[in-house]
């Protein structure tokens, strides 16, 4: 067992855990997109960033693949973290506005505008399908090809893979193919925010103050 601090609370954690696993165990809500139980962490979407360290020397790390260590000080909701997460969702939403998963994330985080030119890509390159195919289905029928903006998910050499069993796991796990959101129309892009629960505590503190899921209760109370 190791001892670490999460949002000011000293907790005991299992040696092999990541920060994300520790936070989830203690009920802290950290948004994720490219992370799934049962698959190796990708560290691609960067939404699960948390701030670690004390005083001046803090940095953001992805909690999904950062191993816990003794004396680690983690803060899951700071201004720096929230700013980063919002920008990342904004970037993803501009790429792929028709994903309900992304729209929900945007709504939950209070992303109310997209300042970039809107594209209509079909894929956010989170790599869930690639890891699903390799790690759970044992097929390795798809992978990444290309570099930078040329990067894409495809079977080797862009030809139909002979190890693909058409099992559909890649489609099942995709956060974009499934649940197409019919809502947004460019240029507004954001579908109207079904839900907005930015923790209002941030206006006064640089930490989230309640240790439950960000329920938005205080936000609604203040609005009233």
């Amino acid at each position, binding site marked *: 067992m190791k001892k670490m601090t999460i949002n000011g609370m000293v907790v005991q954690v299992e040696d092999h855990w990541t920060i994300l696993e520790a936070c989830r165990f203690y009920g802290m809500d950290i948004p994720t997109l490219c992370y799934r139980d049962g698959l190796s962490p990708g*560290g*691609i*979407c*960067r939404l699960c*960033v948390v701030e670690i360290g004390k005083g001046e020397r803090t*940095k*953001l*790390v*992805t909690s999904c*693949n*950062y*191993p816990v260590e003794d004396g680690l000080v983690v803060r899951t909701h700071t201004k*720096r973290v929230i*700013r*980063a997460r919002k*920008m*990342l969702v904004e*970037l*993803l939403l*501009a*790429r792929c506005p028709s994903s309900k998963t992304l729209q929900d994330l945007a709504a939950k985080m209070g992303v109310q505008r997209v*300042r*970039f*030119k809107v594209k209509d890509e079909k894929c*956010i*390159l989170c790599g869930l399908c690639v890891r699903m195919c390799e790690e759970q289905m044992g097929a390795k029928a798809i992978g*990444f090809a*290309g*570099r*930078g*903006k*040329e*990067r894409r998910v495809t079977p080797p050499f862009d030809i139909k893979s002979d190890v693909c069993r058409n099992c559909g796991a890649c489609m099942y796990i995709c956060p974009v193919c499934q649940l197409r959101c019919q809502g947004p129309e460019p240029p507004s892009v954001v579908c109207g925010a079904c839900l907005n629960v930015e923790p209002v505590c941030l206006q006064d503190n640089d930490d989230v103050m309640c240790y439950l899921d960000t329920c938005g209760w205080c936000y609604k109370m203040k609005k009233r």
Partner: protein
Amino acid sequence: MNRRKIKSPSDLEKLRQEILAKRDPKKPRIAICAGTGCLALGARKVITTFKEELKKRGLENEVEIRETGCPGFCEKGTIVVIYPEGIYYLQVQPGDVPEIVEKTLVEKKHVERLLYTDPTTNEKAIHEDEIPFYKHQMRLLIGNNIKVDPKNIDDYIALGGYRALAKALPEMTPEEVIEEVKRANLRGRGGGGFPAGRKWETTRNAPGEPKYVIVNCDEGDPGAFMNRALMEGNPHSVIEGLIIGAYAIGSHEGFIYVRDEYPLAVENTGIALEQAREYGLLGRDIMGSGFDFDVKIFRGAGAFISGESSALMSSLEGKVGAPKPKYVHTSIKGLWNKPSNLNNVETWANIPLIINKGARWFTSIGTEGSKGTKIFALVGKVNNTGLVEVPFGITLREIIYNIGGGIPNNKKFKAVQTGGPSGGCIPERFIDTAVDFDELTKLGSMMGSGGMIVMDEDTCMVDVARYFIDFLVDESCGRCVPCREGLERMSEILNDICEGRGKEGDIELLEELSEVMKDTSMCGLGRTAPNPVLTTIHYFRDEYDAHIKEKKCPAHVCKALIEYYIDAEKCTGCLACLKACPEGAIAGEKERVHVINREKCSKCGICYDTCKFGAVIIS
């Protein structure tokens, strides 16, 4: 060639004496730069012409020709140095060869027109230490390039090469070697500036066998070529450093990662390794010390990102060269999850110096936090481009004006980009800054691998930021969201600004995006990528404002924001611009005022350059 194995340090000294005894120091020797830069300028032809000319005169046994590494003054290639006098001939063409042979080798006179001429005083300089470009440098690493043939290990041994190895192996324990490097405070020359000694110690103490040592010669910065010059010009200095490092770390296997775009470096390093093996300087029981070590060359496919440590190791493993999350350092879990120590070419080349002359001597050079010398690739709008090796603490002004010879055509200096595409632009008001790792970081730039791109008043800073970001968009591996999406959006916004579609709020958005990219990107590429944008916004915000608010490009670079027209009062009707215009956009008759048709004009600027009367004006 059959080479005798060196079995002890005294064997090495004996061999050195034998090599020196065979050589007559008074025998004339022609050293010709056969580095990539000079070869591109036709050095191969110069070399063959020299050989033919000597043969014709029956001098082939009297005079030795040596194809050497790059001495750095690439602006003035092909460089030919005649020893023993050390006469420097610059910009030598094959046609000059008979004259050099006739005058210098036979009559012992100088060929005046091929000597360095000071552009202001017209004074000639004959020797290396008289040429201002060399005079102000401190050439500890690159200075030997012109003296050795990289394809012949004897040249390096004759200069005292492998002496540091002969000192380290029998006399010092691995811990003592690490202690010496730590005391020398040698910081990594590849960009990060991490203390090499500490990295070595971490790798040495990390659990797991085998341990690997790796040379990083995946130099991808536009305009930087110091690693190439060392690797192809004096590979043994790097190999010697690597063997010493391997001994200190306890590694028996090393790799030299060279990008395949450097074919000459690959070739020369391969020959160097082969010759070192023949002498027993690599392989089993090196110099009778019982220490085994060997090196393989790995040719990289040339991705910029492969210079990043974890990406380089992925590439070495045969995978795609993409970075891995580094919450456990590569010095603990690197290549094939084993402790791996990666250092830049230049860092390795410093090791023999430190072992030979001691940490005390090394720390006497440089500043408080940065010791030793650094090779910079001085390029851009500067008179003398080339490789410049200077001690840390020298000011930018000294590099650009004393060594670089100032800005061409009497233009004004505007900024200098240090650290390659991920570095930052340092404006004129900081020109007296002392150059070292910490000072450059304070200004928002970085040392990087030592690229130094000088810009004059005709450079648009928004365009510069756009250029570097466009480069990085292509070079990002595309794995994590902030780097892939962020760079693409940044490029989109900057291109919009340059093409007159900038809008209020763009600067703030760029700044916010930059901060998030710095915070959340997976590897160093994404974390440093916003530097050119942040520094240009910080130091040249007025230029951004002019582009966005007034739709003007103050430096007249961004084509969408400028118009060419002809001043009717100055135009003499000479037809020069009319004939030069590739679009046929200029109308006019002889001795009548010419007019530019804006619809046809492609804004190439040829008319502006052609007009002798200054009648073509940019607005």
